[in-house]
């Protein structure tokens, strides 16, 4: 059985050096965006989804767990942050903290349930759990059902930074994204990450070596959910609304698609994938439902011919780890 990420190179000093160089290039490119005239809201939105895709990739690429319900973290944190900002009037940093903590709590509960099964069942369970939450949010009053929470005040971060200014907001989102990215990067290169990879490759053997694999998987799930929630909290400041779209299964599917396009189990793949898919949605917005069809075609093409994804193919070609 060939695993989803079959040719990940072992961690080596060269791999780490390559990855740090690419990271610096990526960060530098993102820092100069406000001077390039690129629409900053597009990049901010893409950064939120990139962080979400990276969090998702932590589970699939390094733990071998395909979650088909990551929208539930995005949506839950979004709703909680939006509610805290608009109704309770909390400051942005507390709102983000509240949303992210909510996603972490959700990760504990849903992780405890879903890691009880592996493989295909895990995917179906996470999908069902996120659908459960979708119906809950559809009915509870604080989410305002179909309308969602709209007109969320952006406020002053730490009382100083005015988030209503696009450039300030852009750098706050960028710092949030880079921070989350580094947390994930540190995790996959830590001893904890090595154990996760061992579980992905051969769970029974990891168990026989004495690792309590369920605890590792649960911790990875919670971490992934928390970071996905953090992305959802940031997204509230960009979109200024929180709606049912963010909890719907189509959103979970899009996250899977972004990561697949970029490359499952690659460090930078999810970021590239998120930019590609968000850009595609922007430019093809006029085509209505054909966007769904195109997404489906990309799914099919990727699975049949292009399983390593964009970054995965490049890394494979140059025999580098990216």
């Amino acid at each position, binding site marked *: 059985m*060939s695993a989803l990420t079959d040719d990940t190179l072992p961690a080596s000093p060269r791999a780490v050096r390559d990855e740090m160089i690419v990271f610096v290039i990526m960060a530098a490119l993102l820092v100069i965006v406000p001077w390039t005239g690129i629409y900053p809201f597009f990049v901010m939105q893409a950064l939120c989804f990139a962080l979400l895709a990276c969090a998702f990739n932590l589970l699939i690429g390094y733990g071998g767990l395909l979650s088909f319900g990551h929208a539930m973290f995005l949506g839950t944190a979004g709703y909680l942050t939006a509610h805290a900002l608009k109704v309770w009037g909390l400051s942005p940093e507390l709102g983000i903290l509240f949303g992210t903590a909510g996603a972490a709590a959700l990760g504990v509960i849903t992780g405890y349930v879903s890691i009880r099964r592996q493989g295909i069942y895990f995917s179906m369970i996470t999908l069902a759990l996120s659908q459960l939450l979708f119906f809950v949010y559809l009915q509870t009053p604080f989410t305002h059902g179909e309308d969602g929470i709209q007109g969320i005040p952006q406020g002053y971060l730490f009382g100083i930074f005015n988030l209503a200014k696009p450039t300030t907001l852009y750098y706050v989102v960028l710092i949030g994204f880079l921070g989350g990215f580094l947390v994930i990067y540190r995790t996959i290169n830590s001893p904890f990450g090595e154990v996760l990879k061992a579980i992905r490759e051969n769970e029974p053997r990891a168990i026989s070596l004495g690792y309590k694999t369920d605890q590792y998987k649960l911790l990875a799930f919670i971490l992934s959910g928390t970071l996905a929630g953090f992305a959802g909290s940031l997204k509230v400041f960009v979109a200024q609304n929180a709606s049912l779209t963010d909890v719907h299964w189509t959103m979970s599917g899009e996250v899977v698609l972004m990561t697949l396009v970029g490359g499952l189990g690659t460090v930078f793949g999810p970021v590239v994938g998120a930019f590609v898919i968000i850009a595609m949605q922007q430019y093809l917005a006029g085509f209505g439902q054909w966007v769904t069809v195109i997404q489906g075609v990309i799914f*099919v093409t990727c699975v049949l011919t292009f399983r390593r994804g964009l970054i995965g193919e490049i890394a494979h070609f140059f025999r580098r780890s990216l």
Partner: protein
Amino acid sequence: MQALYAQLLVGLINGSFYALLSLGLAVIFGMLNIINFAHGALYMMGAFCAYFLLNLTGLGYWPALIIAPIVVGIFGMILERTMLQWLAGLDHLYGLLLTFGIALIVQGVFQNYFGSSGLPYAIPDELKGGMNLGFMFLPIYRGWVVVFSLVVCLATWYLIEKTRLGAYLRAATENPTLVRAFGINVPRMITLTYGLGVGLAALAGVLSAPINQVRPLMGADLIIVVFAVVVIGGMGSIMGSIITGFALGVIEGLTKYFYPEASNTVVFVLMVLVLLVKPTGLTGRAA
């Protein structure tokens, strides 16, 4: 009491669809090791097939009941030959991703041409009206759906568990290489199995057309509930899928009567409870 019986009947009907769909998923998973995410989209195609037959060729409900599953089944077999077969030997998750993509394509195309609203499909004349059972009023069509689905489910169970063909199929599920060595064309059986599973989904679609209207997204949410049904029941046993499907439909119907707010979520909540108590599912073996 009338309302309770009415909801029970609705529950039984939904249960019929759950049973037909989860049965197909289980059969396909057994042979192809793929969870068919496109199952909901193919169910929808079954309903649309009936709609086209009626409006383009004038063929009514009864021919549609036979033609739609065959047409959609052939479409499924083409999918299997052109795409799914290339996934043999890869991680199971690729099958899920591929069929999810197929579902997006099929649903997107239908949405483009038919929007999101429902198209009406009339109940056939023979099954119109209802009868008074004394304790409740039974619309004949709804009774027919429950009885007919049950018969189809049991026939499928018989085909797989009791016939020679079914024995080949079960053997090929356990050890395809060995069965091939005996001179049985396993790839062809895999294709036919996919066609059978898909055909069952299309049949459910035709049955549901007069009740739920014909909509491009009619299968999209349904398939997620069916996934939960499959997690609860486990995919190890055909009879298990049938019983779980009907039972969950009934429980959902009862919830609609006693606590309507939870009717959308009850199946998922039950899934969580089952996972906490018996992670392998009610009839499943350890994966």
